[in-house]
């Protein structure tokens, strides 16, 4: 099964991908800007994400709050998100509203700055600081996604610092920063626009030309520093965080091959054998058999530059000590490092991944996002149609190459959360006392 793809590039450098599907009268518009927290300068952590919020604050022809309102009034859904190496904006609308969605995206790509005010910036700074409190500071283990990259990447590496940003850096962000960031990164030649769903290709093309054509090409963005790192940490790393949590939880990161490489697919399969679903090794051994963990999973960050991370994430059961939890996780990794995986295990997870790949193509929004992603990272949206094959050709031998190279103790960075007060483990009697009416 293939999804149809047509591409063209405007004179200003905007790359455009069209993918038709007329099964329902809806269309997804998806725009990736190739900028993320990795591009932030020192003292401005969190800025890429704060900037994403500002893109919903109107533009020359769109009043404050009107962006959301226009899309919702049209019967559409919308959002945006910021990641280490990209920022995306997307809406799905009834197909007769395609031009509205394109007009809104073009307006903020071309004519954002006239709408920027200090008051809007101050309000969104408050909103983002509350987002930080909500998702990290007031959430058990919430700081993991700030602490783990900080532990796993060297201090000057673009992936080292916080994506959500420090409160102080967010406070320092100014309208000048907005103007500078906009001019540097929010240019048509640093973006990919995908339209997926029910549309007429000629009409869509002329809409894109009409609304985006006048936006000038950018002056080029500063290159990122060299992002390559050695294949392993060169020795175990470990950080213990005493936090307001009830149960110990271990996030263990391994350096792993960058997203899109042949080795990536082998690593992804190794990760799935370890921690995808209930048939995985970690779930079976730690949750089901030994019963030392309440939850166990593994996943990759899918970073396309420098080094990816494969993360093992295990939460202890109440009676499990911190030491026992760590030992049990290391033992499973050691076992895989020593003995490798079998073809049978590879076949289980590739079958699971295949179903997920097909299911993910059902929604226009997901199709559009994947097309934008492959075009942004690799300049080739057709890669979306090759994912199944790339997984199907992974062999146990290739997985075991990865396992031998990367699963040793010298490539494990442990971020361990433990309950802050007194004894690390709440006892069964604490639980009983607290829960009895």
């Amino acid at each position, binding site marked *: 099964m293939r999804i149809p793809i047509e591409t063209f590039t405007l004179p200003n450098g905007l790359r455009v991908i069209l993918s038709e599907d007329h099964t*329902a009268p809806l269309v997804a518009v998806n725009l990736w800007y190739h900028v993320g927290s990795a591009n932030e300068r020192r003292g401005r952590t969190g800025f890429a994400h704060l900037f994403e919020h500002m893109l919903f604050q109107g533009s020359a022809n769109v009043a404050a709050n009107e962006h959301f309102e226009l899309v919702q009034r049209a019967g559409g859904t919308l959002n945006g998100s910021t990641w280490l190496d990209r920022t995306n904006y997307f809406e799905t609308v009834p197909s*007769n*509203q395609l031009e*509205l969605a394109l007009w809104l995206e073009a307006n903020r790509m071309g004519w954002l700055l006239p709408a920027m005010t200090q008051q809007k910036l101050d309000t969104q700074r*408050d909103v983002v600081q509350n987002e930080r409190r909500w998702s990290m500071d007031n959430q058990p283990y919430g700081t993991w996604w700030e602490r783990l990259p900080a532990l796993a990447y060297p201090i000057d590496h673009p992936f080292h610092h916080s994506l959500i940003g420090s409160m102080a850096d967010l406070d320092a962000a100014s309208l000048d920063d907005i103007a500078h960031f906009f001019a540097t990164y929010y240019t048509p030649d640093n973006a990919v626009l995908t339209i997926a769903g029910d549309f007429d290709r000629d009409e869509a093309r002329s809409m894109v030309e009409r609304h985006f054509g006048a936006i000038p090409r950018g002056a080029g963005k500063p290159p990122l520093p060299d992002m390559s790192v050695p294949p392993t940490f060169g020795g175990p790393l470990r950080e213990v965080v005493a936090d307001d949590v*009830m*149960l110990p939880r271990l996030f263990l990161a391994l350096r792993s091959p960058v997203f899109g490489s042949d080795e990536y697919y082998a690593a992804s399969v190794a990760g799935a054998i370890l921690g995808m679903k*209930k048939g995985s090794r970690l779930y079976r051994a730690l949750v089901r058999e030994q019963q030392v963990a309440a939850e166990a999973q593994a996943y990759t960050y899918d970073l396309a530059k420098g080094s990816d991370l494969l993360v093992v994430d295990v939460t202890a059961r109440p009676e499990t000590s911190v030491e026992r939890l760590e030992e049990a996780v290391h033992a499973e990794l050691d076992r895989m490092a020593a003995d490798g995986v079998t073809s049978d295990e590879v076949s289980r997870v590739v079958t699971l991944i295949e179903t997920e790949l097909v*299911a993910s193509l059902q929604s226009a929004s997901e199709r559009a996002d994947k097309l934008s992603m492959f075009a942004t990272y690799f300049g080739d949206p057709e890669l979306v149609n090759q994912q199944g094959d790339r997984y199907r050709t992974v062999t146990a031998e290739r997985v075991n190459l990865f396992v031998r190279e990367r699963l040793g103790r010298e490539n494990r960075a442990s971020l361990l959360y433990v309950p802050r007060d007194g004894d690390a483990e709440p006892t069964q009697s604490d639980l009983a006392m607290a829960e009895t009416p």
Partner: protein
Amino acid sequence: MSASASPTPAPAPRPEPAAPRSYHFPRFERRTLPNGMQLVVAPVDKLPLATVIAVVDAGASAEPAGKEGVAALTARLLPEGAAGLDGVALTDRFERIGTTVEAHADWDVAAVSLTVLTKQLPDALALVRDLLRAPEFPDREVGRLKEERLAELLQQRAEPRGLADEQFSRALYQPAARYALPADGDAASVRGLTRDDVRDFYSARYRPAATTLVIAGDVTMAQASALADDLFGNWTGARPPAAAQGIDAGQPDRLTRVVAKADAPQSEIRIGHVGLPRRAPDYFDAMVMNAVLGGLFSSRINLNLREAHGYTYGAFSGFEWRRGAGPFVVSTAVKSDVTAAAAQEILNEIDRMRREEIAEDELTLATSYLDGVFPIRYETTSAIAAALANLVIHELPDDYYDRYRERVRAVTTQGVLRAAQAHLHPDRLRIVVVGDPAIIAEPLGKVAGMTTEVVTPDRMEKPA
């Protein structure tokens, strides 16, 4: 700023929409097997996929008193041993055909669901049959899943959002109402559950006449029907009695309570009261009223708290739709020092909603959104199957989805006002906040016009 002058010419004027294209919810067919089991099939052949949801009338509302949590435990045990296979072997069977099975119970029903490539549908359904008809509830797995639920409850004590939800439900309903406790049970009830309780609940509730098999995807009614006959045709058992009543009695008065979390950087706020059942005759008026109040990003509450004041990352309101009257709740998380101010804004918005008709403009924003977004909601086989399961759970008519959009469009500003006056009750608002009492208790009491009750983690499990 000079580096980034806006391009010329100016942007094109805002485009007008083209003519809309028609859409209808996927056609589906129903059939009743001779043993009373229902089959609902929606053939959707866009991709070689199918979603199966087996809905059983075995939700938490049907639990015997004192056995709170047995419905969820029973459902979750189904894949942990059945038809001679243990949990490991069953997991392996599902995963080798590229799928995983979810089995859970909510307030109304238990559901066993999966999505699979069409070529594997017969094998997947045969496994679903094993789970529904021949579960074994091994002792070891009963013990493990109980322990995992207790671990989850322990985790919740440090998780402000889950804690706020749970404490809000307890404060909302009268102590004897089933809805006052979590659907999955609390520590005391879960600890007391035994394998016999699970077996008894299973025997009483899991019957063919209480089960509906929903299939949406690349399959025909004839194929699905043959599979259902083959796998479920000889399943026997009488229809179980209707679930108990008296699950949703609410508290009659106001309450302001802080659940203490010292040094919390944010307050998790829940404000609301008992709402109305899913089958309420003015469901559409109430739903649109909520959309305007706090159901959409562009709703009054979110624009006020987030975009005008910057108090929060998001603020929303909603009715939780169950067979009985579920909660109506406004939820948000705000910086501690603006907790009382945010609560005041929420109370003001609720009052305003009851006081005057909304503007025509606000009405059309909500109705055109709900109307337009309808096709976008049903892009996947799992969303279509879930929608059909919803028909079954709430006994909605077969043309419900065909008429949904016209009924949304028929809502008026007067209807919204009537719904607000009938279903928002300022005199019964229960305000529950998880946060730092030293900062928030006193100002919150002023806003609410009553003394704030502060509960500490040792005492907070007591029902209201």
